């Protein structure tokens, strides 16, 4: 194995990370994304970075093709076949109106319109028994109607298909026989869980994306082959694993959230390397901030997520996204209160200091006023900023109305945006019975390292980590991802001696399915790993907790571990018997991970030399603060805040009383309560 390559297409930039396994050299590059020609964008990025594909043996790719299509409503016309009587399950949804005080609420728009929803005679009961056989002639008629309408992709969701998929499989067989080149997605293959609306939404989303993802990947594969890359192309998935392009063409929905998933995998990797089992990762850019977790070195997943308000029943990275970024706007409300975000100045007009017509102050303007970033920070982005415009905006928008001076106002803005992010971390940790104090915080994205120490202090985290090149962190993380497919089966069974046999045989079935999926991708059998989990609850309860299945599946062992988890998350346990709702299996296969190379160590007694010193405002006063170029830092360097570390796409702020050390691999490790000298 000589070289591994990761290319991650984001909304604005395409990031590239190349790792040479022999020299252990890492190369990163960034280029602008080309939304209209994404595959060409990948090649352009390779070209601009001067990367030759010869010698690349492993290529993993994250793409926003799917997400863009959903956000812009540009998927393919999608048909839906369902059980007679249930044509409108998808349109009806769950009927809730979450915006509680508002009289007006718009439900999410279905991705398959009602005139492309077809009913067929068939019915299963909740235990998978056939109540009415499938009417094959009707399916044939539907095929004809789909053909006439020119539909290229069809989703199939029949009632209780999770319990017995026979009818869905038969429908697929008939449709594929009669419809050439039409892709058919089955609900039980995309998700084996009950709840017909959520499963329908999931399978329709998959079908909506399938032809797009397929065409995109085929195009990319062809172009890569033209440049001499003939191995498999791997795709980053929302569950933090990878799959090969062939599988991605039938599991399109799993390509969503690939960027954040790459970041989360990277975070879990850093966590393991630093010996911190638990890591909060915080990706803050211009308009939003994504928070996710690695727990015990594993990416935190959820099966209860939404994309553009449409539910998705597949395990996805649990990410808490909030509207807090460098472009977040600060304003004084009619009641005299100061608010920051969620509105953002976006790329246009951007912060006031960009001089593109933005008048309201943003978080970036505030940081500029405080001296935490300099005008030169923006040079690599090709921007000339005007600090006086930032000061004007903060003065007019916040300082004057509230009777503060401009620095007080700017520091207030930064404190509030920091507070929003701290609350987002609290939600995702404390809300699940986890204590942030048991985590370290890894910050990336353009604005993450700037606010990380402030956030960490608010939530009681004592260690902040900033890895080299935080601007391309998601792509870096993708190099560490394993193969992974998640399988699930809804069962609803009591945990008692009589049901253990059934549970064991269902798990064996899931394992066989998982093994097939791994083998299809040529994952060697000796690297297969199967991780079993159970969704459990007290009988009578609805929500479940997901726990690892004990090696010996005894009723008392399951009950004890569930009681303990319930106490931790909800504060109490009950004498009630428990039941299993879902069996979950993660089928994994290992990949060759990069081995990082240490950076040059510091010479004994040497101190890093700041490239300049400026006054920076902390806690109500300016302090004389040194600025360091990250390239000048060596392993073993240590310095006390206040200090600023700058690099191409990011700035790390080390406030007073925090202490920075540089580890052997060039990671910045900040002790948030480092006993440094206060300014």
């Amino acid at each position, binding site marked *: 194995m000589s070289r591994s390559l990761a290319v991650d297409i984001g909304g604005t930039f395409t990031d590239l990370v190349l790792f040479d396994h022999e020299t252990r050299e890492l190369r990163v590059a960034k280029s602008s994304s080309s939304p209209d020609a994404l595959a060409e964008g990948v090649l352009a990025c390779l070209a601009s970075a001067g990367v030759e594909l010869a010698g690349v043996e492993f290529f993993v790719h994250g793409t926003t093709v799917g997400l863009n299509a959903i956000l812009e409503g540009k998927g393919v016309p999608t048909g839906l076949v369902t059980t*007679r*009587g*249930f044509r*409108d*399950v998808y*349109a*009806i949804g*769950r*009927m*809730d*109106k*979450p*915006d*509680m*005080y*508002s*009289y*007006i*609420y718009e*439900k999410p728009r279905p991705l398959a*319109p*009602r*005139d492309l929803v077809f009913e067929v005679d068939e019915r299963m*009961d*909740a235990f998978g028994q056939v*109540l009415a056989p499938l009417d094959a002639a009707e399916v044939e008629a539907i095929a004809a109607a789909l053909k006439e309408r020119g539909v290229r992709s069809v989703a199939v969701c029949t*009632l209780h298909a*999770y319990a017995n998929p026979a009818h869905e499989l038969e429908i697929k067989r008939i449709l594929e026989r009669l419809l050439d080149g039409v892709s058919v997605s089955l609900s039980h293959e995309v998700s084996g869980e*009950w*709840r*017909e609306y959520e499963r329908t939404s999931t399978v329709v989303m998959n079908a909506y994306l399938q032809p797009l993802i397929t065409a995109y990947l085929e195009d990319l594969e062809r172009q890569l082959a033209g440049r001499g890359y003939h191995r498999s192309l791997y795709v980053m998935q929302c569950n933090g694993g990878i799959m090969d392009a062939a599988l991605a063409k039938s599991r399109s929905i799993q390509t969503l959230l690939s960027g954040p998933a790459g970041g989360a995998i990277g975070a879990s990797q850093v966590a393991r390397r630093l010996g911190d089992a638990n890591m909060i990762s915080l990706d803050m850019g211009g308009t939003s901030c994504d928070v996710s977790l690695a727990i015990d070195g594993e990416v935190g997943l959820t099966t209860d997520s939404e994309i553009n308000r449409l539910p998705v029943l597949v395990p996805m990275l649990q990410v808490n996204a909030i509207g807090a970024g460098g472009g977040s706007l600060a304003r004084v*409300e*009619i*009641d*005299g*209160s*100061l*608010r920051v975000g969620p509105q953002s100045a976006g790329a246009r007009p951007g912060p006031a200091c960009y001089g593109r017509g933005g008048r309201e102050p943003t978080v970036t303007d505030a940081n500029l006023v405080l001296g935490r970033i300099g005008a030169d920070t923006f040079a690599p982005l090709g921007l000339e900023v005007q600090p006086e415009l930032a000061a004007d905006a903060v003065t007019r928008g916040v300082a004057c109305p*509230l009777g*503060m001076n401009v620095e007080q106002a700017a520091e*207030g803005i930064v*404190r509030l945006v920091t*507070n*929003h992010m701290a*609350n987002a971390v*609290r*939600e995702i940790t*404390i*809300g699940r019975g986890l204590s942030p104090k048991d985590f370290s915080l890894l910050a990336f994205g353009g604005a993450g390292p700037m606010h990380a120490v402030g956030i960490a202090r608010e939530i009681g985290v004592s260690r902040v980590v900033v890895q080299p090149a935080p601007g391309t962190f998601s792509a870096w993380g993708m190099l560490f991802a394993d193969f992974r497919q998640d399988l699930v089966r809804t069962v*609803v069974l009591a945990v008692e001696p009589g049901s253990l046999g059934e549970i064991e045989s269902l798990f064996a079935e899931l394992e066989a399915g998982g093994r097939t999926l791994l083998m299809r991708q040529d994952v060697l059998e000796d690297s297969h790993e199967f991780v079993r989990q159970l969704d459990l609850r*007290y009988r*009578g*309860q*609805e*929500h479940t907790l997901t726990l690892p299945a004990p090696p010996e599946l005894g009723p008392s062992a399951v009950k004890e571990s569930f009681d303990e988890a319930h106490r931790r*998350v*909800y*504060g109490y346990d*009950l004498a*009630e018997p428990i039941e299993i709702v879902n069996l979950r299996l993660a089928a994994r296969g290992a990949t060759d991970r990069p081995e990082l190379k240490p950076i040059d160590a510091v010479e004994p007694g040497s101190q890093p030399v700041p490239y300049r010193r400026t006054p920076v405002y902390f806690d109500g006063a300016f302090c004389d603060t040194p600025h360091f170029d990250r390239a000048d830092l060596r392993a073993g360097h240590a310095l006390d805040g206040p200090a600023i570390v700058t690099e191409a796409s990011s700035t790390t702020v080390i406030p007073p009383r925090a202490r920075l050390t540089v580890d052997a691999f060039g990671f910045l490790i900040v002790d948030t309560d480092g006993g440094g000298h206060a300014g």
Partner: protein
Amino acid sequence: MPADAVTIELIRNALISVTGEMRTKIMRSAFSPIIYESLDFSVAFFNERVETLAQADGLPYFLCDLPNAVRAVIEDVGGVEHMRAGDVFLVNDPYRCSQHPQDVSIVKPAYYRGELFGFTAVRVHLIDLGGKAGFASTDATEIFQEGLVIPTVHLHSEGRLNEEIVRLMAANSRMSRSTMLGDLQAQVGACIVGEERLVEVIDRYGYELYRECCDALLVQGEAYARAKVREIPDGRYLAELFLDDDGVNRDEPVRIKVSLVVDDSDMVVDLTGSSGPCAGPYNMNPNYTNAICRIAFKSLTSPHEPSNEGHFRPVRAHVPDESVFNALRPSPVFWGFKTAGTLVDCIRRAATQAVVGQPVAGNYGWSCGAHVFGEHPADGSFFAMVDEAGGGWGARPGADGEDAMVMGGIRNNPVEVSERKFPVRVEAYELRAGSGGAGAFRGGLGVRRATRLLADVRLVANFERSQCLPWGLHGGQPGQGSFIDIHHPDNRGERVQKCTNHALPAGSRVVYFTGGGGGYGDPRERAIERVMDDLRRGHITPAEAESDYAVCVDQDTGQVDVPKTRSLRAGQGRSDDSGETAADGAIETRQPHSREKREG
């Protein structure tokens, strides 16, 4: 550190975050679907003067009523000096602080270093607390038929669960003791976690600063709301709507009359002229009425602002003594929330004349309950399948009404889950074609759900706006009304809107139809492509396209017959632009008109 704008905001965020955490806690650990699926609960936190400081999303009906529960507790125990750390109180008095006995409030005094600094409180709807029918009855004539009333009791005394209370409640309920205990523990758990987090917040900022900031938040909230009211021209705005009946006197509509009196930054919701006390269970107590007025006020002035007591200070209700809004013991109250929904609509409609809030045509009635309960044949346990069905919402300028939507966070029961848990088989679940009121913008569609019963059950139903239909606006037509068709195994059929303890044998088929929303604007002005979309999607028939929308479709091609459509649309003038429902005259004569006008 003084209470500057930044710190005030930090405290605001902290309080919102605390109530959000309380909400997550209860949703995830409650046993009853009415709590975790229907979100029939609310969560709030108060200062020691029982002023709301923060509250979390749940069911809006509840939100503003929680302080009344805290006040009732304080009154019943004889003052806060009789409370101890670790005490948790339970109360459900429907004449002071709940809409019905099933709404059980848990109140926990919160202490910082021994000093009372406020209260955390959670209210949930316990699915059964006795009464003459499972879930509820539509024909109760006194509270004693509606469930167990519990004046303030200690559920926990200084940290210890009072098992006697749980025993007493379980003995009076069709719920299992474990479900009852699970739901109550979830409430207590949320209150405890709320108090713990608040103590952490106070630790961080210091008690004095914390209190100053909380007070400042109330001042800000009031300033915000008053600024919004000042934008409304002073005057008296009237509107009138009706409930079909009170469940007992089935031929007599219940009148809701609102005079919205705006004077500078104050608003009074004067309910004079509304019906007197009902014989049936549609009464509301004045505290609850006041809370509902606050909710309507908030939807008009600051729907997206996090709210505290300050936001509600400019509004108050005027409730006449002899009124459906002044329930006195022992009058029945269970379905007061139906009255409440129509009250919100009525306030909203009155306000629309003052150019506040967007005009929205009538909805199907906020929720239509069709609840089935009985003994599960598998193990003989009591089951209750609570189904608050959604329906069509009203159209508004620029947009059709939403299809199949219910108030607040209530969600429907997935078919796959229902069939696993309850002895039922769902045969169809679909949108109800043609149910939305015609208009330039069409009312949303109701739903049709057909369920075969696999066991003997009893049905409790409350379908509203079956007689007094969801109104249209500005020439829009009313939506179709709601009803339930029951097909008995002996082939007998019957149609009901409201019923209590209606015994249905296994094999019966219950098919409910919820109403559509009212339309907005003249249907003949509806864009032809929208009419054709509706046609293609099966929401209307070709005959309806022609009769309601004056769009002719060529039967052979399925395309618009342009010349005929043009002449049809040109030939008829606008039906009515008085602002009243065009079809008012066509509705049965016993149907009272909905009205609105401005005085003054």
